[in-house]
Each structure stands twice: as C-alpha cells, then as structure tokens.
C-alpha cells in the first residue's frame, strides 16, 4: 500500500455528477479508458454503487450518443484535479478495516465519498447537501417494507420496473434510462427528501401524471395541521350518515392530528393510522384522497416524511412553549429520539371490496379487502439490503431490494478487479426486516352461491407481523401488486402470467356478521392490534374510537339508536321469542328459554380470590331439550347455531371426546405438536349446540361434566398438559330412551343420561308430541300447504330479521351488565324458599322432598340477569326474577313431574330416584323384612322369584324387577340380608343378629 497508486475513479462521486447535470454513466467508462492499468489492491474496501456493472454495459451500448461525449468531458475534467491531493494522504486509515465502507451511510450511492477516500474532504458537502438528520432518515425510511420500493419517492421506481422487462437492462437496479429521459434525476430527492422546502422550485411529479409531489406534501401538511372533527361531522351529514353529536362546540375545533402526534410522542409509537374518510372530508384535501388511492407508492412515503417533519416541528414548538415533559434537556432528548425514529402513516378506511372484484386495473393502487386468515407463515427475515463481498479483492457492494428481488452482481464492480462470479453474500452484514406471508380466504358470506372460496396472498411487514392469526376475520388495506412470473428463476424466459398479492399497510381485526364473541371472556386488550396504538382504530378501543369519530362509529350509533328504540317496546320479550326460529311452530316457552340462553347471565369472578382474579362463576345458561322425534328440536339447534356467537354445531353421534375437546396433532408445515381445538373449545365465549346428546358415548359425555360447571377442558396428551377455556353455553337435544317418550316412566328413566349431567342444565324442556285434533289439523294443513302453490304463511305477524336479532343480542351481550337490585334479590330468596318448600309444605304428606337445590338458585339468578339484559336494563328487577321463576317452573313442571305423584321433584333429576319411588322402595323393604322375619322363610331364606311373587300379591301396583333388585342390593349393603346363589337359584337370607 505504500506505493503511490495511480488513482482512477471506480467509484466516482455520483451525486456530485448528477447534480451537475449529465448522467454518470459515461464517467466510469471514460475513466476506465483513460486510466492506466489498475494497481493491485489499491482500494481494498472501495465501496461502489450497486448499479455499476450495469452502467458500464449501458454506457457501452450507448457510446455513440452525444451524451456520452459530454460525460467523457466531465469525467476528464473531474479526474484530473482530484488525483493530485489524494496520493500522499492515502494509505494509513483504510487498511485495518475489513469492510470500511459500511459505517456511515446506508445508501450505496452516497457512501462513496467518505472513509475510503479520506483525500476528498472537500467533496463531502457535495455528497451530503442536506442536514445529517435528513441523511440519516432517508435510508431508514427507504426500508419501509410495505411500500416496498426503495426509491419510492421518485419516478425511478416505476421506471425501473419497466426496465425489468428490457433484456438489456435486466439486472440494472436503477435503470439508467431514467436518468436519460428525466433530467431531474432521482438522486437529489434521495439525498434531501427531508427538507422539501430547501428546493421549493423543483418539480417533482409522480411519473406519468400531473401530480406534483411537493404539492401533495404540502396538502398533507395542511391536513395534519388543520383537520378538525367538525369537518368529519359535516361530511358525514352530507353523506346522510348519522353522526355522533359533539359534546361541546370546542370538541369539533380540536386539531385532531396534532393531538395524535403528541400522543405518538408520549407513547413512543411510530405509526399513525389515517382514516382516509377524514382526508375526504377536509375540503382542501379531497384531491389527496384520490392521489393516495391511486399512487400510494409515491404518496405514502411523502406522507411519512411530512409526519416526521411535523413531529419534529411540533416537538420544537412544544419545547418552546415549555410544555410538560418537554422542557430543556428533556425536550432535546425527545427531539433526538424523534429524529432517530421511522414514522409510518398507515391509511385505512376505504370501502372494502370483495377479493373477486380485484382486477388488473387495481395494480399498484391502494385497496381494501375483507377475509378470513387461513394460514400465516412464521416470521420470515426479509432481506432489505444485501451485502456482497468480492472473494478476490474483498471489495464490498450493497444491493437494495427492488420489487421483491435482489440482483446478485455478476462480477466485481471494481474495474481493477472485475472478476466474474466472485461476489459472495455476507449474511451478517445484510439488513433484514420482518415479513410474513398470509393467505386470506373469502368469508362464507362473500362467496357466490355454489362456488368455492378464493384466496389471496398478503405480505405484512414489521409491526403488522403476527397481528392476525389463522381464523381471524380481518379487513386489510394494502397495495395490490402484480409481478410477472418467471418460468424458472434461473432463466430469463417469462410467462405472460403475473402473480398477484397485497402489500399490507393496515390491518383491522373485525368480527363477522353474526354475534361477536363474548368479550368478557377475553383478556383486556388481548386481541388488540399491536403497534397501531397511538391512534386507535381497533374495534376494542372504544374511547379512542369515539374521538376519531369514524364511519364505523356513526353507523354503529345509528344501529345503537335503533336497538335502544327496540328495547323500549312493551312486547319486546314476545317479539324476540317469536323472531327466534319463526318457522317453528308454537313452543313459546322453549324459545324464550333459548332466547335467554343467548343473552346469558353475567360472568362473575371474585376479585379477591386466588391469582388471576379468582374463580369465575359461569353466566352461561345451559338448555336441554328432550322430546319425541320429529318435533323440530334439531331445527332449533341449527337456528341457534347460525345466530349464536361462535356457534358450533356437533352431533352426538358423530363426535368423539376428541372431536369435542381438543386433540394433539402434528402441524404439517412445521412438524411440531400442536393442539387443535374441538367444538367445545372453539365455542369458547359462544354457544355449542349438541344434537343427539343421548347417543353420545359415555367417555365423550364425561368431558362435559368439566365443561359445564368448571368451564374448562383439561388435556394431558403427548407431552402437552394444559387446561383450555371452554366458557360455552350448551344447547343440547336428546331423544327419550325408547325414541318415544313414555309418560308412565319418570324422566330419568326416559332420558338415558347420568343425573349429574342433567342437573347441570339450567333448563330442561320436554318437547312432547301430543295427539290433539285441532293441532293435528293445523299441522296437516301446514304440511300439505307446502305442496300447494301458494307459499305457506307462517304466522304473518311481525318478526325481527335475523341480522337485527343477532345485532340486538350482540349489543346486549357487550354493553349491558345488569346487577341485582335489592328488590330482586329479596324476590330471588323468596322464590327459592318457596320452590324448596313446595314439597315440604304439602299438607297431604309429611314426606320431605327436595324440590330445588342451590344449582336451581344459581340458574334463577342467571336467567333473571339474562332477562334484564334483554331489556337493556342496568339492574335486575322484580319482573326479571318473576319471569325467570316462571320459566324455571315451566321447565321443572314438565321435566321434574313425578308420574306417580304428579308432584315436582328435583330429586328425580339430582339423584335419579323420586320421592314416590323412594317411598315405594321403603314399603318394599319393610314388607320384605316382615316376610323374612316371620313365616316360612325364617332361617332358610326366601327364593328370589318367590319373594317377588309374594310382594306382587300384596301390592296394588306391579313390582318392578329392577326396583326389587335395587332394594335388595341396598339392603345387602346395609348388612341386613345376604343373597346366595346365581340367577334363578338366588336365595335371600336374613343376616342373623342384624
């Protein structure tokens, strides 16, 4: 390194040249031609502009143009004076560094002047005409993944894309054609985009349009400085949208975005969500709306820039004003902090279109679509800048991503080296960003009848990564891209086909058309979109949403008013019950019960309990329908499944315990063990409808015990031990044992379900098919009417449409949380006591019967809460409790009627034996003992069959064999008697001394 080298200009200062006018292309070429043979190892780390090789080639190909002549002259003129001072100063500083080029600036072009050329101190101001802050900002800003183009501020991006198809310029990063055709080349913008005011008279138009970027930036600046909520209110009024009345006139006068920017500063956020409708409603900015929609690639970075400028300005102003937290050094620190940050504007608020409606003309425009996330890749490190080093001369080059591709330099760009195929990627010097690819599928409601759903790919970057998970419904705003497909990545042949995807700028989680999930079951803010804060747009963020007064809210307000109106109707309860499955005939009480189930009681947790807020008492109401076949139980279930929040429908026959709870599988992609949720877990916060409940296997049903009281599902499989939440209401339907209900048998004998499970249902309805001439006639008319020409009329009275009913329930579930009033609790106590004492106070018998247990009390509380919720009432009142009790009585009366006594007996449900039955057993036992003690049987015992026969002779009712053996078993357990022998030869013997 000691020998004074001949200097040539492999990396001549591009910025410098461009500013002087002619393109740089010729320069290198020229310097090559005039330079003497290169010296070995002259500049080990000489950085070079990424596009150098292309330039060379380009220069060769256009050598004949007059331009090259100018270039040549320039190059000559430049090279001569500079050579001299460099020589002596050169050697010492640069050699120890392996890659000396990397440190100061990221943009390859500009790096040139700095450390490797210490001899050029005077050239630096030329290379960096703008302030250091701006220079710093520029490379960072360029990394914004969603906008995707490093040169997005300038026409270059569009042009270079075109260049891709030009074979000659194929691997040229920044096609030189740009510079030739547009004299105002890209470089100046890059070097000073932060200070647009520096060059006010410069024309910066979006290529191919009349849109002036400087004007656009000015407009946006005005918008951020001038937009007030009152404009939005005016706009909404014009569009005939209902607006939320402003609380005070002052509220409409707040400069909204300045408030937001202050909040961004305070919270350290970097994203500003921009409701595009606000742009539209601010009169001077109407144009900006269209521009943003059409040229997001250019306008969004410009907006980012303005945002940052304004952040600084505002911080400065606040510091001047001595605002709290912005005084003195603290303020300086804040400002320095802001300088180092990258701010991003995330526009949203366009009307979402169906993904089928996207067409090629939307390419590179800002669009918004809705869908269901079906798959999301893990985070992919997305290379933003690749760092290459020449294996021969250790020359390093950085290449930026362009249209999703990085072109590997085919040869060392340094002219003295020029080796082919020696550039190797140095991974740890490359820059990466987070990226995730998401597949978005059409939601069922958007798919045309009879078609299968389409899917579209989304690319999300940085903060938006991992915001949505598979299964989420989202509304995304993004730039629609179409990129040509190559037949083979290694070949130059292309297909005339294009692949399309969306570069997402904004994600919004949404809920579908049916009821949302029960929000009280979610941790606060758990589903919130991270990184978007500052200016809330997530649906959960009520308070902020009100401030922003966006379209969703106004529509919401309208709906809200309608629902509240509805809630004032005096016949509300009947109307809602009628609207539930309007086609199903009669069964009013069943419908009312299910209606209350949909509303649900409030979930209570005792805050002072153990960790995590203590135990939680379920507010979910479980309903069981038992009845004859053909009584439209399944239809009710299907209906509820359709409107219920997170409704899941399972048929007992088709479900296994595994299908209901959760099971462990291997993920096909990652080969890792994953838990897949079954119906119960999936319906967490919703309603799980289980048909054919009786046909379920015992193992499956046993799972339900845990679910219905603890509301969790425990899994211990394949090394995964966990408890999943299954806070779900269960609506089940079952057939009686012999498929037809036998009214002569108690209900527990009719339903083949363990009493422990039955008692977990708050309401149990018997849906019986009774023979009744008028009813039959009506039914027959209805059925035959189906085949007549005119469509049958179903009642004809007014019913709520499905979506309104669903909206009503949803609203009530989210917003109404009634608490018990003292009056109501007194009534509850009284009702409970009276329910319990029904049996006891019966004068005709002194037998004690259990009519209601605490479970029923809890049920009553839940039902009354649900009823209050339905009325949109904040307190549970007397009428709620009364209706709850009535429903309970109705349900109990039919289900807990002891067929022998005709009395309500909850013991039937809880223990499986009714009082009447128990009395009969006692009688049987007494008789048996007398038989054994006295008479012939003494000592020798009594034959089984004979005992039964003798009992039957004595009794007025038939002796049930099963009952008899139950009695014997019980007595055997007590040690009163023993049974010897098998089957028919069984002999009952009295145990002596007992």
């Amino acid at each position, binding site marked *: 390194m000691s020998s004074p080298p001949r200097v040539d200009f492999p990396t001549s200062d591009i910025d410098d040249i461009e500013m002087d006018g002619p393109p740089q292309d010729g320069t290198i070429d020229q310097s090559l031609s005039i330079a003497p043979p290169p010296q070995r190892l002259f500049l080990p780390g000489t950085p070079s502009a990424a596009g150098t090789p292309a330039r060379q080639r380009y220069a060769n190909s256009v050598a004949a143009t007059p331009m090259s002549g100018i270039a040549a002259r320039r190059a000559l003129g430049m090279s001569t004076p500079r050579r001299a001072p460099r020589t002596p100063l050169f050697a010492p500083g640069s050699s120890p560094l392996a890659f000396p080029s990397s440190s100061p600036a990221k943009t390859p072009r500009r790096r040139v002047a700095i450390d490797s050329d210490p001899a050029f101190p005077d050239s630096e101001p030329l290379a960096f005409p703008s302030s250091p802050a701006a220079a710093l900002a520029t490379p960072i800003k360029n990394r914004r993944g969603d906008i995707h183009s490093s040169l997005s501020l300038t026409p270059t991006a569009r042009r270079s894309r*075109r260049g891709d*198809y*030009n074979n000659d310029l*194929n691997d040229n990063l920044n096609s030189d054609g740009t510079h030739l055709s547009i004299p105002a080349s890209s470089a100046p913008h890059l070097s000073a985009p932060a200070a647009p005011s520096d060059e006010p008279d410069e024309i910066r138009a979006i290529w191919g349009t009349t849109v002036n970027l400087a004007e656009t930036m000015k407009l946006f600046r005005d918008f951020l400085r001038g937009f007030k909520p009152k404009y939005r209110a005016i706009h909404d009024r014009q569009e005939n949208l209902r607006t939320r009345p402003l609380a005070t006139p002052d509220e409409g006068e707040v400069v909204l975005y300045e408030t937001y920017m202050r909040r961004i500063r305070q919270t350290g956020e970097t994203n500003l969500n921009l409701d595009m409708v606000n742009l539209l409603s601010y009169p001077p900015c109407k144009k900006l709306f269209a521009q943003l929609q059409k040229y997001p690639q250019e306008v969004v970075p410009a907006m980012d820039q303005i945002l940052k400028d304004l952040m600084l300005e505002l911080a400065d102003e606040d510091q001047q004003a001595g605002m709290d937290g912005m005084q003195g050094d603290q303020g300086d620190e804040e400002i320095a902090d802001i300088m180092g940050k990258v701010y991003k504007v995330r526009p949203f608020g366009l009307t979402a279109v169906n993904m089928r409606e996207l067409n*090629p003309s939307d390419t*590179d425009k800002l669009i918004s679509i809705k869908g*269901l996330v*079906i*798959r999301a890749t893990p985070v992919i490190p997305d290379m933003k800048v690749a760092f290459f080093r020449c294996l021969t001369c250790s020359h390093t080059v950085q290449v930026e991503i362009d249209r999703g591709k990085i072109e590997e330099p085919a040869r060392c760009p340094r002219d003295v080296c020029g080796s082919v195929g020696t550039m190797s990627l140095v991974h740890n010097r490359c820059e990466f960003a987070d990226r995730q690819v998401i597949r978005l*599928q059409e939601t*069922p*409601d958007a798919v045309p*009848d*009879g*078609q*299968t*759903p*389409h899917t579209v790919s989304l690319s999300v970057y940085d903060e938006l990564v991992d915001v949505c998970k598979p299964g989420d419904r989202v509304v995304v705003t993004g730039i629609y891209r*179409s990129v040509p*497909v190559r037949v*083979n990545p290694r070949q*130059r*042949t*292309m*297909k*005339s086909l*294009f*692949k*399309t995807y969306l570069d997402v700028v904004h994600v919004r989680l949404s809920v579908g058309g049916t009821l949302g999930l029960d929000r009280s079951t979610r941790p606060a803010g758990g589903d919130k979109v991270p990184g978007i804060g500052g200016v809330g747009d997530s649906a959960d963020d009520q308070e902020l949403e009100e401030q922003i007064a966006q379209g969703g809210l106004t529509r919401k307000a309208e709906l809200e008013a309608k629902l509240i109106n509805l809630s004032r109707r005096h016949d509300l309860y009947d109307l809602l019950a009628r609207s539930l499955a*309007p*086609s*199903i005939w009669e069964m009013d009480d069943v419908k009312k019960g299910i209606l209350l189930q949909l509303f649900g009681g409030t979930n209570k947790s005792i805050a002072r309990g153990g960790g995590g807020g203590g135990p939680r008492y379920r507010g979910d109401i479980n309903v069981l329908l038992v009845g*004859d076949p*053909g009584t*439209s139980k399944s*239809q009710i279930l*299907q*209906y509820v499944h*359709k409107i219920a929040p997170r409704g899941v429908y399972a*048929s007992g*026959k*088709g479900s*296994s315990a*595994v*299908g209901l709870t959760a099971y462990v599988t291997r993920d096909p992609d990652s080969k890792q063990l994953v838990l897949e949720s079954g119906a119960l877990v999936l319906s967490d916060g919703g309603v799980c409808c289980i048909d054919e409940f009786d046909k379920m296997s015992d193992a499956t049903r046993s799972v339900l015990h845990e679910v219905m009281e603890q509301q969790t599902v425990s899994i211990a499989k394949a090394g995964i031990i966990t408890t999943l939440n299954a806070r779900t209401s269960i609506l089940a339907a079952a057939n009686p044992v012999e498929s037809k209900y036998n009214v002569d048998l108690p209900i527990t004998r009719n339903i083949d379900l363990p009493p422990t499970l039955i008692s977990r249902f708050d309401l149990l309805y018997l849906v019986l*098919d009774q*023979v009744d*001439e008028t009813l*039959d*006639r009506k039914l*027959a008319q209805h*059925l*035959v*009417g*189906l*085949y*007549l*020409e005119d*469509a*049958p009329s179903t009642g004809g009275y007014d019913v709520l449409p499905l979506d309104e009913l669903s909206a009503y329930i949803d609203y009530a579930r989210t917003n109404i949380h009634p608490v018990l009033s003292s009056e109501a609790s007194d009534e509850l106590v009284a009702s409970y006591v009276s329910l319990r004492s029904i049996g006891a106070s019966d004068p005709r018998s002194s037998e004690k019967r259990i009519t209601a247990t605490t479970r029923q009390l809890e049920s009553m509380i839940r039902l009354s809460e649900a009823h209050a919720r339905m009325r949109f009432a904040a307190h549970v009142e007397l009428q709620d409790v009364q209706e709850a009790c009535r429903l309970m009585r109705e349900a109990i009366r039919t289900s807990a009627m002891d067929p022998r006594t005709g009395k309500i007996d909850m013991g039937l449900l809880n223990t499986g034996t009714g009082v009447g039955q128990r009395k009969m057993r006692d009688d049987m036992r007494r008789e048996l003992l007398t038989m054994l003690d006295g008479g012939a049987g003494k000592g020798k015992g009594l034959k089984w069959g004979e005992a039964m026969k003798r009992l039957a002779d004595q009794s007025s009712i038939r002796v049930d064999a099963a009952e008899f053996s139950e009695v014997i078993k019980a007595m055997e357990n007590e040690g009163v008697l023993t049974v010897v022998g098998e089957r028919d030869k069984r002999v009952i013997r009295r145990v002596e001394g007992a």
Partner: protein
Amino acid sequence: MVSAFLIDAINDPTKVVQELYEEHTGDIDQFPTVVARHFSDVFLHSDDTLREVLPLDVNHPPESFAHRSLVRFHAMVQDTSSSPEMYLASLNKNKCGGWGISQNMPASEWPSSFDYCDLKEATALWAVTVPGQTDWRTEELTARSHCGSSSSQSPPQPHKYPVPNAPHIGVQVKIYDNEAAQSLKATDIVTFIGILTSESLDSEAVSSPMVPSLHVLCHKVQSIDDASPTEELATVRDDLIKWISDEALGGDEVAAQWLVLELSAKVSVFSLSIKRIRLIPDTATLEPHPSYLRLSLCHVFLHPHHHHPALPTLHHVLSDLLPQYLTVPLSLDLLNKESFSPESKDEDLHSGYLQVPQGTTLLLTENGVQEGKLVEKGIMNIRAVQEVMDAQTLEYSFPFSKFSFPTDIVTIVLCDGRKSAFFQTGFIVPLKTKPSLKDNLYKPRDQIRTPDTVKLATYRSFLAAAKRCFGSVQVAEETSRHIQEDFVRQRQEDPSITADDLIHLMKVARLLAASMLGREVTVDIWETSKKLDASRRKRLP
C-alpha cells in the same frame, strides 16, 4: 354442411384467435367475449358441429393430442377456488396474449414496455371427467367409436377426482370470458371447447407438476331439460318395472316399483326456493323437504353367511338406464380411508365420493361390510352421506369454515339384513324374491337379457321424463282437503302416526304421480300410494 370457419378452427385455433384479434384490435376488454361468441357460433349451435371436435376423455387422453390442438371436454367443475390468473393480453407487434399463446416465450420477445391496462384476468378452475357417467352416455356424447389408445398413465392430481383409483381425466381449465365463467359452480357439468396445452399447475410455485391445461374458447353448461314427447312413454312404466324386477330384483315387482319411484325423484323447484336461502334456511317452512325417499332395499337374511364381492346385478341394470350413476361398494376399509365429502387441504380442494353432479344416482352396497372398527373418519363419512340423504346438502370443509353446497343425489342403499347398518333411510323395502329367480341378484352382466336399443332408449327417456314431471307435480285443493282429513282421522285411530309419516306419504304420492307422468296428485293416486306403502309395511318384520 361444414363451414370453412369450422375447418379453420379445428385445424389451427391459435391462428383463428390471432386473426380475430387483428380484426378487433383496440378493444381488448371485449375481446374474450368476441372470441367466445365466434366459437360458440361455429361449434355450439348444433350437436353435429360439436361432434366435429375431437373429444378429450379417458379413451383420448391429453397425451394423445398434439400441442395446442382443439379439443372438447365434457366435464364436471370440481374446484373453483383457484385464484384468477393475470395475463398480458397484448404482446408485441399486435399479437394476442391470451389463450396460452405467450406461454414460455423467451424474454427477448417480450414487449419492452407494457401498460398495466393490458393486464387481463382469466378464471382458472379444475375440471374432471364427469364422475359416474355411464358408458352409454359417454358414447352418446362422443359419437365416435374409434378407440384411442387408452393410456395406463395415471392422471395428475388424482385426489381431485371423486372416485378413487378410477380412470379419469383432470384438466386445469382457463376461461378468458370472465363474465360467463362467473356462473360456473362446483359440480356443474360443462362442455368446454378449447386449446389443449400442458402447463405447470401453480405458476407461482417453483416446482409444481405439469398438468394438462385447456384454454377455453367457448363453453356450454349442460341443461337438464330437453323436452321430448311424453305421451307414448306412459305405457313404458310397466315394462320397465317388469324388466328391472326380473333381471335384477329376483322378480320382486313391488321393490322394482319403489325403485322406479325413487329414480324419478329430484330436488324439486319448490323446496329449492326454501332450502337455498342462505343463513335463514327455514324462514318459510316448518322443515325443508328434499323429495327423496331415501330408499333402502333390504335382502332380508338373503345370504346371511357369505358375502358377495361381486357387484349386484342391479348395478348393471341401473348403469344401462341412467346417465349418471355410481356404485359405492361400502366396506370398513373404504369408509375409514377414503373421503366422502370434499375437503380443502393446503388450499387444494380434495374431492370425495359425494362430490358428484346434480342428478346422479348413488347405489350404496353394504354387502361387503365385515366386522371391524369404524374410526373417526368413517363416522364423519357416514354422517356426510346421511346429511345428503336428509337435507340434500354436502359440506365442503375449508380451513376455519364449512360451506354447505346443495346437492341433488338419489341414494339407494342395498343391504343384507333388516335395515341398513349405517344409514337412517326413509323407506325400507324388504326384497321378496321368487324362488325361481333367486340367484339372479348377483348374476354377471353377460347373463342379463338386455332389451333392444330402441326399447332401452325409451326406458331412459321415460325416467328422464318422470324426473322432469316431478318438478311440476301439484296437489289439488280437493286432494289436500282429503289428505288433511285422512291424517287427522288416522292419528286419532293410531297416535303413533306422526307428521313424518304424513310427509313421507306425501312424497310417495307426488313421486307416484310423476312416475305416471302426471302433473297432479289426485285422490286416486293418494289412495294408491297408501296401498303401496301398506304393502311395503306388511313386509317389514
């Protein structure tokens, strides 16, 4: 008369497209419609011209055609979920870009600059040979008897064909006329005419298999109703019943009569309007009624001890009568391993047995079932079949969502024993074979006395006519009063009669009317159907 257009189009369709393009230059938006109209005019107006085009089928597999030759493909749309494809509609030098013309051209021929306005979309979907299309129907459509080289090569993407391991053709279809393509639904039967090429399945993936692709010039959806005279067919009914009973059902005419009733069933227009309302399936009626009998024919302890691996004779008879017919030989192995309902795995819709076109008849035979264990998949399969029987809907599973598709499938279950082991069928008809004809239930095909082709043709058109009639059968006012009274009276006599019985009987009456090619349920027909049902009930043990 064979027009010059026709010959041109058959010989070099690409050239015709290019010529059209030059004629209509400057109007790229409308160009696909122009192409579709031109080729429809040439080919689709009569069957004769249509038949000039070489068919693509199992006997004429894609490999047997030259690159970019014109073919017609009678197919079922299996999957419409693939994303539309974007292509450059206009290339250099006024060249047309669609219809695969610009495939794999060297980049040097690429336009150095292009306008995003020239990007157009083509609908892409997957179509397969119509599953269950019977031989006579194929022949009728092909109208060419020369046997091509039947290739043993397995078709690509076999999971997209409903019947596993069956020979078929699967083709990626690209339709450039988007508006027309939008109306195509899964399981529609469509005749496509287009240029056959071979392309990689997923243009975005690096390594994706090459599949045959059809660039459609024009297409036609098969319509069900082609009116043919019904009068002279009225007498055919008895002959048909006699033939079926003698040849396939051991001389049991009652069973044959039930069979004919079931074969005349389809989802009627009326229940259509009720059932197909999304989200609110039951706003208008107590219960949607698919008009199927859900027939199961039971051989009561006919062959209790040995199983018949062979196909029942009924299979041969039905495949001679019906255009689309499929036998599903149920066995535990099949139930546990194959899928019955379509499922999307990795964004690829895998087909299942039940993904068949509307109007297909399924014969489920249970005689191959042995003892063993039914795993979860088997249970789900049985549920899917039951769902089709009960509600005529089939669920397609997609990640995080299920889509219910309307079907129109006649199901007949053939079982040993008293009733079907797996399915709840609406009607059970125990077979009573005549001793002399006892063995004919499983006789091979060559022992069937097939009537002459003319007779067979009348049988076929009779069944088609009955199906058509069924949609328009109505219940007269007077009859409906009669039925109501009848029901009330019966219920008082026997409380075990439920509404379901009435619904079933109503179905029988309507089917009976249809199979007599009548338009109305009269009191006579009501009484006859009651008798018919009574005679069936008598056989039930």
